[in-house]
């Protein structure tokens, strides 16, 4: 059992290490007052380039960041582990009671997974969805063309084509892993309304589930030449008692030249079968447990 947890944690840690290493010294550079982004010929503020989120740990748990137990194993105690939930003030997701119970059951099932739906969709090499694709390991490239913004994520070669200017969403019957994005510029802020989600994606590896009523409103604010302030409001009236919000900075990659490499996650997926094999064996042997964090001092 310990071995299994360790193995998983190490995989997560490897991902985090990539993020940390890539952040370099970008930090809060360029936050001078009065800065304004250059404009593209069609008037859009220029957000193009390669970016990487400073949301260490959110890929593991939106509420808690990295697993503190894993930090002990990895010798990372005391390292930055920022909380990305900015509302409500207690930093907890306002799950309705029925969905809180469903997630708790899922956290038990994650401990002894016997079915595909007990395994993190990210591990299963499925699309991460929004906003998760923005804080899993790997950065993103933004391209802009007249009337649209394109986000190319490195992880799982995912992408989002975001039309600007009032085009209606796809019919509600169309459900999508990445949702259906429509954008508009409010000053230096790209506001993206994302709907049409399916129920297959999790918001982190912690079984943070949602329904197909999820609606995400993202705000990408160009705050300086090397920094975007990112914010996402998550509404799902079936699942959450009220909307909640995450926020984190997104920094420009320090490399002068960068090209996204092919991340063929599905083609290389070899983890799910052994995870289920061990989970089924444990379950059959009567093992039970729950994946949870000690929350001292939080």
């Amino acid at each position: 059992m310990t071995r299994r947890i360790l193995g998983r944690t190490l995989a997560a840690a490897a991902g985090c290490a990539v993020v940390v290493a890539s952040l370099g010294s970008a930090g809060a550079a360029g936050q001078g007052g009065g800065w304004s982004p250059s404009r593209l010929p069609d008037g859009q503020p220029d957000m193009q380039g390669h970016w990487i989120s400073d949301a260490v740990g959110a890929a593991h748990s939106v509420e808690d960041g990295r697993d503190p137990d894993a930090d002990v194993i990895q010798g990372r105690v005391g390292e930055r582990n920022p909380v990305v939930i900015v509302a409500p003030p207690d930093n907890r997701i306002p799950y309705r009671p029925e969905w809180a119970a469903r997630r708790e059951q899922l956290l038990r099932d994650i401990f002894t997974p016997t079915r595909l739906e007990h395994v993190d969709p990210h591990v299963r090499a499925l699309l991460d969805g929004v906003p998760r694709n923005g804080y899993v390991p790997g950065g993103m490239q933004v391209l802009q063309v007249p009337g649209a913004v394109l986000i190319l994520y490195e992880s799982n070669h995912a992408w989002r084509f975001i039309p600007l200017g009032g085009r209606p969403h796809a019919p509600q019957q169309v459900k999508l892993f990445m949702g259906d994005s429509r954008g508009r510029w409010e000053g230096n802020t790209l506001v993206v309304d994302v709907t049409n989600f399916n129920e297959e994606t999790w918001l982190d590896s912690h079984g943070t589930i949602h329904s197909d009523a999820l609606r995400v409103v993202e705000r990408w604010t160009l705050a300086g030449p090397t920094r975007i302030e990112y914010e996402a409001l998550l509404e799902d009236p079936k699942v959450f008692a009220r909307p909640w919000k995450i926020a984190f900075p997104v920094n420009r990659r320090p490399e002068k030249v960068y090209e996204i490499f092919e991340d063929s996650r599905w083609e290389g997926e070899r983890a799910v079968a052994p995870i289920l094999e061990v989970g089924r064996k444990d379950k059959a042997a009567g093992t039970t447990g729950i994946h949870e964090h000690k929350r001292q001092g939080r």
Partner: protein
Amino acid sequence: MTRTVLAAAAFIVLAAPAAAQSIPRTADGRPDLSGIWQAINTAGVNILPHHAEPDMPAGLGVVEGNEIPYTPEAAKKQRENYANRAKLDPVNKCFLPGVPRVTYMGFPFQIVQTPNQITMLYEYAHTVRNVFMNSPHPKGPIEWWMGDSRGRWEGDTLVVDVVHFNDQTWFDRAGNHHSEALHVVERYTPIDRDHLNYEVTVEDPKVFTRAWKMSMPLYRRIDRNMQILEYECAAFDEAFREGPAGR
């Protein structure tokens, strides 16, 4: 009657320049290939001429000369692939389909064009290709499912040079195959506003005795509110593997 003839003549005179002008262009004067495109043929089934089989409609083929110049050994491998295609076709495992197969699988794709990078977004398995303009391929050896694409303009034709493939992808469901030495040159030429000519030159000295070509038109999807959706093949495949048929 005279009036009719004159009207017809005027139409002809006007129509010719209108066709040339009807190719959209970017601010820097290049053809603007932006938009959603799709091949309408059965090359995804078999790039060579073929009669129908269950689930495989007939087609006239897209290969110049109706022949692929395999070495004898490679021809034998194609026959084995064909016989075992249900099991061996990498697309049946939802793997990235390679180039040029991704273009004519029967799904739409979108071209997003900027001066230095032309990105192609495919509905099948959220495949993406970044075509970097006027820049060299990285030094190999690299084996990518979709290869490494570098583009240049030759007049109004976008020429994309693709290398650094693996040997895992096929050209179609009929088991036509290649090695990691595959070199693909694609040529996208606007015919008019809503049609591109897509021509592909294929070289692979390990598998073919000479270079060969295929070509086909690509059609703009002019459907109202057209957008690329998702065919998240992996989700279907994992369900299949876990289901009764997969055990």
